[in-house]
């Protein structure tokens, strides 16, 4: 490679150091990254549009499947927005149960991230052990909600499952075990020199840049941006539960690690407090099937940052518009900044450090000239278009999707 000459290297869409497809076009000079362009869209599923074709009740389960890791975040955010339009409020017990599930989800998400971060820097021992212990919280979620992922605990006006006294005791014991293990990981993260040296001064994002790029969640908090929706705009039971917002001033990947392990320890305290102060009473109030005309914005501090859902109702059983701003969409632009003038080898861990979720983020933007022709595709047309597109590329989905019934030879 000659001095001054640059090459373009595509990373992704398949396996761009992650399990999800997205594409990074890198302009390299030697080992140095000059420029990075992120191209989203390989995971676009049209969920916002699909919500308009489904009733609100069906919508909860669809919204929940935006993301497999922070499914409770999306569902709660959506449910909160709809409850605001309808003008109902979930009873205090339901709010607490939602909060407990939310914090359990944060624990599982951050433990997952810790493992992924270890994997990206070649510390697979950390991946194996942290994920082994993450099973404790996954089992707890299955116990409380009925499933390990996509918990389906939310419904309009409350929650679907109560927490029994036996379950409560069970949560306490398992939480103690998990907290013990997490303390160990905190000590590993803060004392293992190979890890610290690999993460220090990698993916630096200055506080000013974090604000300018609109970073959210642990990515922003690791750059001393003290923002947390749980404290700034309390929802659920967060107004009544004491907790510290963890920040770090390292501005690098190591800071993001410290923030996440710090948040883990806070989450244990919050769950204990919520369980000890669990109010009595009903777990749900009746909600109407039809949502009046109106609009609302739900805000929620997901494990990855602020999640925003906008819902507009039109007096029917189906929403008029649902708009999701997932935290990764806010963070992904910061990645380009973090990697400027850095080495190619830092790409995997820097991308992984924002804890990206591309299935949350992917969306379609159509840029139109103001004076150009406009068109609106309806759901059926969109679906037909998708089937035709795949057929042109040699895959025929039409039979698969149209048959509800199983063949009669069953």
């Amino acid at each position, binding site marked *: 490679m000659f001095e001054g000459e640059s090459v373009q290297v595509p990373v992704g869409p398949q396996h761009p150091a992650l399990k999800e497809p997205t594409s990074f076009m890198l302009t390299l000079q030697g080992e140095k990254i000059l420029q990075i362009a992120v191209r989203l869209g390989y995971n676009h599923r049209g969920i916002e549009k699909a919500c308009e074709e489904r009733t609100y009740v069906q919508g*909860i*389960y669809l919204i929940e499947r935006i993301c497999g890791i922070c499914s409770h975040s999306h569902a709660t955010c959506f449910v909160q927005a709809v409850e605001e339009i309808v003008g109902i409020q979930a009873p205090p017990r339901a709010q607490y149960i939602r909060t407990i599930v939310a914090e359990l989800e944060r624990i599982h998400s951050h433990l997952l991230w810790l493992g992924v971060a270890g994997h990206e820097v070649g510390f697979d021992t950390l991946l194996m052990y942290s994920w082994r212990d993450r099973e404790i919280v996954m089992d707890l979620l*299955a116990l409380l909600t009925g499933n390990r992922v996509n918990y*389906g605990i939310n419904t309009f006006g409350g929650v679907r*499952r109560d927490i029994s006294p036996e379950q409560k005791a069970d949560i306490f014991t398992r939480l103690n075990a998990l907290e013990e293990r997490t303390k160990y990981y905190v000590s590993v993260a803060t004392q293992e020199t190979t890890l610290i040296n690999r993460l220090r001064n990698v993916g630096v994002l200055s506080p000013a840049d974090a604000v300018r790029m609109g970073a959210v969640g642990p990515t922003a908090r690791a750059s001393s941006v003290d923002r947390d929706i749980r404290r700034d705009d309390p929802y659920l039971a967060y107004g009544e539960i004491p907790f510290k917002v963890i920040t770090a001033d390292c501005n690098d990947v190591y800071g993001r690690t410290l923030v996440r392990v710090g948040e883990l320890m806070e989450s244990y305290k919050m769950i204990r407090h919520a369980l000890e102060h669990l109010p009595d009473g009903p777990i749900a109030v009746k909600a109407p099937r039809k949502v009046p005309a109106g609009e609302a914005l739900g805000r929620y501090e997901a494990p990855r940052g602020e999640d925003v859902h906008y819902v507009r109702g039109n007096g029917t059983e189906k929403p008029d518009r649902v708009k999701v701003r997932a935290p990764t969409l806010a963070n992904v632009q910061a990645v380009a900044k973090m990697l400027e003038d850095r080495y190619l080898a830092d790409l995997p861990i820097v991308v992984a450090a924002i804890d990206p979720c591309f299935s949350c983020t992917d969306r379609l933007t159509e840029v139109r000239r103001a004076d150009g022709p406009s068109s609106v595709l309806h759901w059926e047309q969109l679906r037909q278009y998708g089937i035709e597109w795949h057929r042109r590329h040699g895959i025929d989905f039409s039979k698969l999707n149209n048959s509800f019934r199983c063949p009669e030879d069953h």
Partner: protein
Amino acid sequence: MKRPGRMLAEVLRSALRKPATVLYPFVKILMPEHFRGRLHFIPEKCIGCKLCMRDCPANAIQIIKVADKQFRCEVDLARCIYCAQCVDSCPRKALEASREFELAQLQRKDLFMRESPDPSKVSAPASEQPKTESAKSEPAPANKPANG
């Protein structure tokens, strides 16, 4: 104390421990009591209001009338997302979620659940209609709250 090899002791200890994984399928982990697994249908309780069909996010469930006040339930297990909203929606608790989760099949058509009322109890349609109990004749409660 900052030093490399912080996890070494843990790794060595684990070498002497039993594996954290289970020997599936020889050893099976039982799912918790309220797990949302394969659905089961109780034909005697179904009143045919079809609220489950209305709320199913995946259009996976169908309630089909087989005779007067007798209904059959069909669930496409490949479409079902196991949210158990139908269980919540059902005003008569005719559906329940089980702990079964091993649903893999070699053929798509086997991923199908069809639970019909007991043939001996199915009353023949039309002619024998008055024989079935009339006290319980309740119209399908379309105005009942459904979102559990």
